[in-house]
């Protein structure tokens, strides 16, 4: 038989306004990113509106906040799923249906794989592709290319963040399955292939801009510089490569007046 007190507690749910505040605060997850706790302070700050409803007693709430100040690291967008799931689990903890360790285990288990997934998709595929698409459209759209970047990126990023948070809250541990079915990992190679093609088109633009009209040697020099830079970049780094190119351009540019 379930004790009456537990039945009452199990009915406690975080209100929609509080969930909205949690989500809005998740946009500041990395405000105090630090090498020891990484996103811990941001996570504790984001989940506080939910804890305020679940733990009316300030002392209990402070204990819950302290629990969330443990080490936490994830991709800042994918973390929304973990945050949503943590709110759902906190409801169970507050109702006495689960021990507090459940929330910690959930965060520790999902942080690294979600970080890898988010880094691969958002940082290494979507962002470069959106930027390259914008740069490639600049000759046709002018300043409108800025909107291409902002819209391409955020049309994926913002709905993804909202969906991740909502799914995390709705399904808690089940969010893993939902994210696996979102095809983030399988879409990454396609995006990278598109990015490579766009990067090639932009490289061609650099060559053509230097060589047209009627300056074939300029085009040849830029193409050669590009190939050499591509080879030496890993050893030289971007800063030295740029200074080397500036120097080379100054010397050669003066000769080709």
């Amino acid at each position, binding site marked *: 038989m379930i004790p009456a007190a537990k039945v009452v507690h199990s009915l406690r749910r975080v209100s929609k306004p509080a969930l909205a505040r949690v989500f809005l605060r998740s946009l*500041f997850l*990395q*405000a*105090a*990113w*630090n*090498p*020891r*706790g990484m996103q*811990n*302070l*941001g996570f*504790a*700050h984001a989940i506080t509106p939910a*804890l305020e409803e679940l*733990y009316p007693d*300030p002392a209990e709430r*402070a204990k819950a*906040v*302290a629990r969330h100040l443990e080490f936490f*690291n994830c991709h800042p*967008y994918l973390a929304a799923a973990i945050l949503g799931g943590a709110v759902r689990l906190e409801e169970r903890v507050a109702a006495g249906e689960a021990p507090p360790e459940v929330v910690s285990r959930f965060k520790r288990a999902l942080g690294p794989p979600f970080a890898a997934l988010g880094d691969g998709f958002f*940082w290494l595929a979507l962002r*470069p592709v959106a*930027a*390259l698409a914008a*740069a490639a459209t600049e000759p046709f759209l002018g*300043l409108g290319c*800025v909107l291409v*970047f*902002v819209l391409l990126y*955020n049309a994926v990023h913002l709905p993804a963040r909202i969906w991740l948070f909502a799914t995390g809250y709705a399904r808690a541990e089940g969010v893993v399955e939902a994210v696996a079915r979102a095809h983030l990992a399988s879409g990454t*190679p396609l995006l*990278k292939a598109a*990015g*490579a*093609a766009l*990067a*090639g088109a*932009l*490289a*061609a633009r650099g*060559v053509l*801009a230097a060589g*047209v009209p009627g300056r074939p040697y300029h085009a040849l020099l*830029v193409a050669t510089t*590009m190939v050499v830079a*591509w080879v030496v*970049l890993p050893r030289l780094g971007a800063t030295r*490569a*740029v*200074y080397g*190119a500036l120097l*080379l*351009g*100054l010397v*050669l*540019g*003066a000769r*080709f007046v």
Partner: protein
Amino acid sequence: MLPLPPRGAPQLFLLAAIAALVGGLSALDRKGALQLMLSRPIVLAPMLGWALGDAQGGLLLGIPLELLFLGGVNLGGNLPDNESLLAGALTATVVPAGLAAGTGVDAPLAALGLALLLPLALFGRRLERASEERNIELMQQALERAERGDPTAARLNLRGLLLPFGAAAGICALAVLASPMLALARSLCRGAQLAALEGAWHAVWAVAGACAIRAIRDPRAPALAAACAVTVIAITAVARGLW
């Protein structure tokens, strides 16, 4: 006498205030808040350029900068060069300098500005590390307060935004105030020097193109990019009757 924007010193100070605000906000978007990518050079440079009076000039700076730093990724504790600080400061210097010199943002001015300000990308990385060290103190304060029973301890999170905002705002404002010197350097350049600087800007584009291809971390990327580049050049050559 140093060249100033059309409305003189008051306009220069106004532009410095605008650059401080936009530069500071972009520093927040870069990592601490929202991350809508408004701090990327391709957005920040034309946006700040518009606020300072020359959006097209900002775009001329923003695209190669975006390509140069396309591969920089903040993975875990690994810090990339700070492309936003560089884009903000470069735009804040070059756009007012173009207004003051009467040339607008052109390739020679852009090359001069980049040569002077490129180390800011590395400096920005150090600044970010310093900010993270400061955040350790905030975390410790929050832990102590939570252990003492303070349920509002995590509010300290937002204080982590102050240092990045202040540092970027200060640097962008100083960049505007230093712009008359760049305008003077640009107005002293003549024939061969201008051609040399234009060549330097083309060379920067070449490195930017190479960086963009490197940014796609996929073994097929170089071959795909090369094939696409050759195709585009060939089509353009045929279309313009060069072959």
